[in-house]
């Protein structure tokens, strides 16, 4: 087994574990962490695919996709945290 395939499979397993987390957790922060983990799994699958070409240079397109994906994921995470903070505050005010 090549290490590219191995990391792709680890990525698949991470997606599955994170999927369980998204469903089985109930705190929004934990769900958010699970979603970030799922993103990491998807990225691992992508980068694993980049290495599965003949030749020594990895395919740069999945790398670019993952870089875009990381920035999108952290933006969404930050907004979700802001939303969670706001919700918690409104809950506190309304008692």
């Amino acid at each position, binding site marked *: 087994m090549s290490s590219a395939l191995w990391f792709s499979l680890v990525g698949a397993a991470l997606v599955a574990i994170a999927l369980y987390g998204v469903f089985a957790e109930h705190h929004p922060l934990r769900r958010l962490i699970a979603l970030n983990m799922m993103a990491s799994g998807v990225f691992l699958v992508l980068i694993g695919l980049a290495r599965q070409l003949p030749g020594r240079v990895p395919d740069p397109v999945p790398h670019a996709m993952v870089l875009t994906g990381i920035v999108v994921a952290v933006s969404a995470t930050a907004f979700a945290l802001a*939303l969670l903070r706001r919700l918690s505050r409104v809950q506190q005010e309304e008692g």
Partner: protein
Amino acid sequence: MSEALVVLMVLLPLLLAGMLLLAPGGWRQRMGLSATLLSVAPLPPLLWSVWHSGVVEVALGGWQPPLGIALRADGLALLLLTLTALIALPLGLHAGPWFRAHATVGGRGGEWFWPLWLFLWSSLNLLFLAADLFNAYVGLELGGLAAVALVALGGGRDALQAALRYLLLALFASMLYLLGVALLYGAGGTLDLALLGGRLESGVASRAALVLITLGLSLKGALVPFHFWLPPAHATAPAPVSALLSALVVKAPLVLLLRIWFELFVPLGFGAAGEVLTLLGVVAILWGSLQALRQQRIKPLVAWSTVAQLGYLFLVFAIATGLAWSATLLHLTAHALAKAALFLAAGNIVLALGDDRLSSLRGASHGMPLTFFTVGLAGVSLMGLPPSGGFVAKWLLLQAALEQGRWLPVVAILAGSLLAAAYLFPLLRHALTGTLKPTGESAGRSLPLRLELPPLLLALLALLLGVLASWPLALLKPAMPVVLS
């Protein structure tokens, strides 16, 4: 020239959103409508060009796929761009006064509504034009974030809770979609939809991609049983936002799914999996309608009606004919117009009465006859009565189902219409009978014309669509996927 127009359809709203952000809060509200008008400007010439000389394709950066990203303005894309613009204009008229009316309560929503809506608009246009699967992913995320932020403008605990749930769901769905796209890239070596169609072979990877992409996009499209997030989000958002969400935001992932399904998966011979989607569509029509019947409040009723009406859009996956495809997109258009009208009208009623219980509607039609006339007109299209757009769409869909001998969809279409009549009737019955009993302090407030006219305009457009159905159908015909034509 027409290539520039395609790019402008995405860039112009984005640029204007940036401009509005640089302006101080008060100016944003004043310039919002002008920004809306400007964003529509490239559409008429583009429509002209596609109508007369066919599909416009743009290879961005001068790099052809598989290396570069393409935008493709075909008839389908143009229909949806036009629909978005037709909803955006009355909405632009309505949103200003609506947010100003709410500013007295303490919300500062209006300042943020315009930039967020322009971001959303740009992402919708991008999704309709995208020919590249990863580009569509970025579009989905852009639109998802904007939609969630718009829901959160509602400000209350329920709105924030619904927004958070909606965001987590949207992120989850995008991840499933992206995973499917990763597998397709691994199998075909390109992200371009058209190129992928020629390269993909039937195998485990393409099957897994089918499952992941379909799951992800039907979660975003709120197909039963993935609809749970929709009613709270659409019911708690500010009225203009609810109208946008129900009319357009849930439709964009569906259009993407339709494209991917009929351009990639059906040619590979996976069409049989569509039976499941159609079955869920039937369940959605019945379940959504029954839930709408049970609602005691106005906006949740309208939101559940969206769940039901979205079900019709999934019937095409099993009735895979050209007629069903056209009818589905016509239904999408008719529903978008009628539902936008209904949500704006519902928002007006809640604003005027200060209460959103159906029982408080008693006699309310005397105070705002125009708004209730709108509710009636939108209802005609949602129920599928002639001569509305909803009628033509359902009629064609029925015809397609009968031609294929599909009895379950036939029953669902007919039952759906009857149920729609049943759940929309209370809205009018309460309003038209009895006299108004003032309940809240703002009860009986009369509405300015700028709030009452835009929904009426939208409802009239939904009605007019029935008479002018041959235009959208002619636009759609050349854009039909090869397997269907």
